């Protein structure tokens, strides 16, 4: 009995020890990462500030990042659209917007029938 109690206490110490050691290590790494990333982001920001004064150069320097920023813009746009549609529905229903949420407004999907889209544009262009 006592032996079992001792064994199980050992397991507890080992287990809680492992949990704490792992998670404390994780805290350190998260904080270090945070600092490293913030440093590089601040450098980025400076680059951007600098770049905005020389817009032509910006294109060259931040080429890779421009895409992700475009992404954010799209997302914000979408939120705006959703907000407008929600408001419209709410208005016609005479309700508060807290209650209703338009979950998504989809645009033309980017990946699938890409040539359809262009084809369509072509056909439209052909009729002009």
């Amino acid at each position, binding site marked *: 009995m006592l032996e079992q*109690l001792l064994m199980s206490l050992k397991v507890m110490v080992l287990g809680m020890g492992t949990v704490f050691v792992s998670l404390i290590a994780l805290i350190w790494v998260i904080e270090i990462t945070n600092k490293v990333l913030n440093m590089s982001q601040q450098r980025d920001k400076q680059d951007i500030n600098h770049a905005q004064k020389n817009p032509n150069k910006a294109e060259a320097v931040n080429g890779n990042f421009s895409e992700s920023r475009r992404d954010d813009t799209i997302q914000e746009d979408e939120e705006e659209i959703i907000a407008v549609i929600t408001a419209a529905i709410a208005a016609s229903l005479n309700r508060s917007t807290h209650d209703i949420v338009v979950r998504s407004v989809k645009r033309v999907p980017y990946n699938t029938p890409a040539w359809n889209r262009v084809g369509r544009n072509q056909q439209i262009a052909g009729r002009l």
Partner: protein
Amino acid sequence: MDKPFMEVITGFLSDTGFAQISWQQGIMIIVSFVLLYLAIKKEYEPMLLLPIAFGMLLANLPLAGLNDAPTGVYGEADFQPGGLLYYLYMGVKLGIYPPLIFMGVGAMTDFGPLIANPKSLLLGAAAQVGIFAAFILAILLKFPANVAASIGIIGGADGPTAIFVTSKLAPEYLGAIAVAAYSYMALVPIIQPPIMKALTTKEERQIVMEQLRPVSKLEKIVFPIIVTTLVSLLLPSAAPLLGMLMLGNLFRESLVVDRLSKTAQNELMNIITIFLGVTVGATATAENFLTPDTLKIIGLGLLAFAAGTAGGVILGKVMCKLSGGKINPLIGSAGVSAVPMAARVSQVVGQQENPGNFLLMHAMGPNVAGVIGSAIAAGVFLNLFG
């Protein structure tokens, strides 16, 4: 078919379940009805408790044979296929379903509050004390170590982790442990508040915490990669659960594989939830479930939840002191995981004292940390007893 007709009918009748049912099976069927009631009417974690209860019903219908193993060799003439649940159960037995569910959970989880306040991880660690407290008591109640570990993991308040560990260490207890784990997860709003109030002062509960700093997209992408690498190196046996959790989270945060993220958290997760629930329930045959051990498991499970809650709150109090009153100890109880229920409990208990107090975001940190913590505790058990 050449036998006299009466004999055929007699044989047929003796093949009915009514002729074969034992009273234990009858009791198990009633237990399954009670669980169905809890799942449907009381909404106790219905997503898993409903399939578990139905699996229990199917497994205790005599002669239905849904759990039967096949006989003979596939492809040969004398081969008799096994029952449906025998095959679906392979995903549990082979440890496939729980990591895939974790992938879905990862794709649904926002680790932002944890990244914003990494000290939450300490609370998620402290709440794991319930696991080991229940383990010690189970050992003292003469359970073998592998079973005691499976019982302890109920205190992780994390269904897939409990099923993963139990299916590897003590599969014959799977039904009882899964039922206990999901029932107590549903009962978190009843179990936790008294403990939280008993251990904290009114002043502590009224503490309003500072708003969390915003977390950048890049930090959220780097987080799952770091956790996988670091924790898997420290404790390789935690890699299946944590690795898949973090893969799902990377699907979510990378923003470039939206299709995969949605499938992981919806269809794939739903399919596996159905298979997992029904087959785990089907392990709860009368023989396995109607034993005094089941009652002990239920008792120890409750204790594990209570101890975990207390552990989180007590470390919360310590951190409150050390931080000069900036941390509300109520968020410590969320460290048991049971996402997002336990965090909501912190929020509600906090608001009872101070209606303007919004703790939910702060409690989400320990809450998701608890998932990581339980997975690590599971890894320790698998390393020691697997």
